[in-house]
């Protein structure tokens, strides 16, 4: 099977075949991460620029490690949003980087559509590492990878995502990918955090967490922020924890073999109680581990036909 995408801008337009290929490819890379010498020559001679307009530790490090384990030359650029406002446009910055002939640009940006913007203007491959409230495809794909690893399948799973769905690119990318793979997606959160029309994507929307959790195979908790652009969406974190935080009691509503996931960073005691965050059902660190393999797969697949097998 061949991969026809030059860019990874989101999961919205990935077919089930695309997603399966990405997960299968990641499977083959995962073993490399357990070796004593964690490096293969797959992307030797390729240059990857990690262009990050938002602070990120986990995602940037994960991409960088993935790039290095594939022998690509990785360059990190941390552009703060303030420097954008007073100076260069995104197009100019990107064109300057492109003039140095990178093969792939991995971009994280505060504006929805930023990855799409670059893909329209540059010749190199673009991987979206999170754009505004739009998409974060590598996160969703590593989540699916982790689910598949534990459950043996995606189709037919009931996945409950709880939190600020409106502002969550993780929720969107997971929704699109899970729906396309045949999972049942439930979204839950306070009314201020459910975006209008989201149910048209074929998910179920809940404002009562208990109902959303009942019989779930996977529960994914999203990081919560009290304010967005200076506007409060919640009266308090305390109240949020009471109604939408995940604790041991609530988790009992889900299936016994439920997986608890979180894209990080966690707010312990807010969206997730420590006994759950550290409990036996959580696969949160496995998500992080799998992230490297999934990102290796994405870097490899957008690079086109490889000179050698991984």
């Amino acid at each position, binding site marked *: 099977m061949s991969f026809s995408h030059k860019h990874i801008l989101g999961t*919205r337009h990935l077919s089930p075949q695309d997603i399966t290929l990405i997960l299968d490819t990641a499977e083959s890379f995962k073993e490399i991460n357990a070796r004593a010498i964690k490096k293969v020559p797959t992307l030797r001679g390729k240059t990857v620029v990690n262009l990050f307009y938002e602070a990120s530790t986990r995602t940037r490090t994960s991409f960088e490690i993935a790039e290095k384990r594939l022998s690509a030359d990785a360059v990190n650029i941390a552009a703060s949003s303030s420097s954008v406002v007073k100076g260069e*446009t995104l197009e100019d910055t990107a064109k300057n980087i492109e003039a140095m002939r990178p093969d792939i640009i991995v971009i994280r940006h505060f*504006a*929805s559509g930023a990855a799409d913007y670059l893909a329209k203007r540059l010749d190199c491959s673009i991987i979206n590492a999170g754009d505004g409230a739009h998409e974060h495809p590598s996160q969703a794909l590593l989540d699916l990878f982790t689910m598949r690893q534990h459950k043996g399948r995606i189709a037919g799973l009931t996945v409950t995502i709880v939190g600020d769905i409106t502002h969550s690119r993780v929720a969107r990318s997971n929704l699109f990918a899970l729906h396309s793979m045949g999972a049942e997606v439930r979204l839950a959160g306070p009314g201020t955090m459910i975006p*209008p*029309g989201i149910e048209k*994507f074929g998910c179920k929307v809940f404002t009562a967490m208990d109902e959303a959790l009942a019989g779930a195979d996977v529960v994914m908790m999203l990081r919560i922020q009290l304010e967005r652009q200076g506007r409060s969406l919640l009266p308090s974190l305390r109240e949020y924890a009471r109604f939408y935080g995940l604790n041991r009691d609530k988790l009992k509503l889900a299936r016994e073999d439920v997986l608890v996931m979180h894209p990080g960073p966690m707010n312990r005691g807010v969206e997730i109680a420590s006994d759950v965050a550290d409990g036996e059902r959580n696969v949160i660190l496995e998500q992080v581990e799998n992230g490297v393999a999934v990102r290796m797969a994405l870097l490899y697949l957008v690079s086109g036909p490889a000179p050698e097998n991984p």
Partner: protein
Amino acid sequence: MKTVIKKGRVVDPGQGREQILDVLIVDGIVARIAEAIDEADAEIIDARGMVVAPGLIDIHVHLRDPGQEYKEDIVSGTRAAAAGGFTAVACMPNTAPVNDTLAVTEYIRNRALHEGLVRVYPIGAITKGLRGETLTEMGELAAGGCVAFSDDGRWIADGDLMRRALEYVKPFGVPLMTHAEDTTVSAGGVMNEGFVATDLGLKGIPWVAEDAAVFRDVMLAALTGTRLHVCHISTRGSVDILRNAKKAGIGVTGEVTPHHFTLTEEAVRGYDTNAKMSPPLRTEEDLEAIRQGLADGTIDVIATDHAPHHRDEKNVEFNLALNGIVGLETALSLTLALVGKGILTLPQALAKLTSAPARVLSLPGGSLREGSAADIVIFDPQRKWTVDPQLFQSKSRNTPFAGRQLEGVVCRTLVGGRTVFRRL
């Protein structure tokens, strides 16, 4: 100096006229409209197969002059107007400096008089600096040539201030024009709220931001008895509010832009910043209600909200792009498309671009009467063309209609009998 426009289909909705006729212009004045006018010494304009109509009037444009001449100025803006068949435009006060003093009003009028290709009517600011705090000297501004007042782009959130503005302006006989948007509801949104915004991860603006503001302003118009004009209606609810207000005898009028009766929020997909405007493009249901409102007369006027922006102001991330599009050079064709779809008759459509805007702002023109200035547009209603922004007369190119095939080509525009635009 005599000119005869021969054998065109004269469509003058202001007089209910639609007939193949000749139009004789003498010294810039419409001297006679009749069948077969033969004047030996007259220049002949062959208008066979063409529509001859009163020059179009756009009561909502941004000429960006003074202050933002890199986007547009009075010369380029009136050239774009002429190319679009417009012989008069009313320009919004959000210039730099704001048109809130007589000096700015006079600057605009003088530059337009000496260098403009079409008639330019300034709209003054309701509040100084468009800050929504203190009223401008509307009496002096009206006497100096302002034909209406508006804080365009900024709704006057202070209800008492808006009431005072309506009360104060009433004796001067000019209307207020409201950009109705409760920004505490739109709250930083960048497109219509709904499925598409959710899909794109963009913050939405719900319809209630407009409806609530329209309702308050219409009620204040009822309270004060001052004429109110509602700019660029974009929602189904606004159409209903306006319809009910008119039924109740409240002195309100309304306008819609060609983009709001042509495009929906779907145009934003792909993060096309040329589909970013205020109010935002809405849904199919809103479009339907607006077309109904045009057909039943609830919406009086088609106005472009011609909003030129430099490429650099649109070629950015969607959140950062400025609102608005140019409209003068596509408005007639997009309006004729409504005729093609059977929503309006040709006279109805032209009324919304001629007699109705003249009536709303009490402007001369908008009709072809013997003895009136020969402000005339001659266009071929059938001829197809493809929108190429590079060919615009405007300095700016920000249009979502690039590449679209339209029908209706302006062949000639005359202001006071003088040809200000001609296309073969």
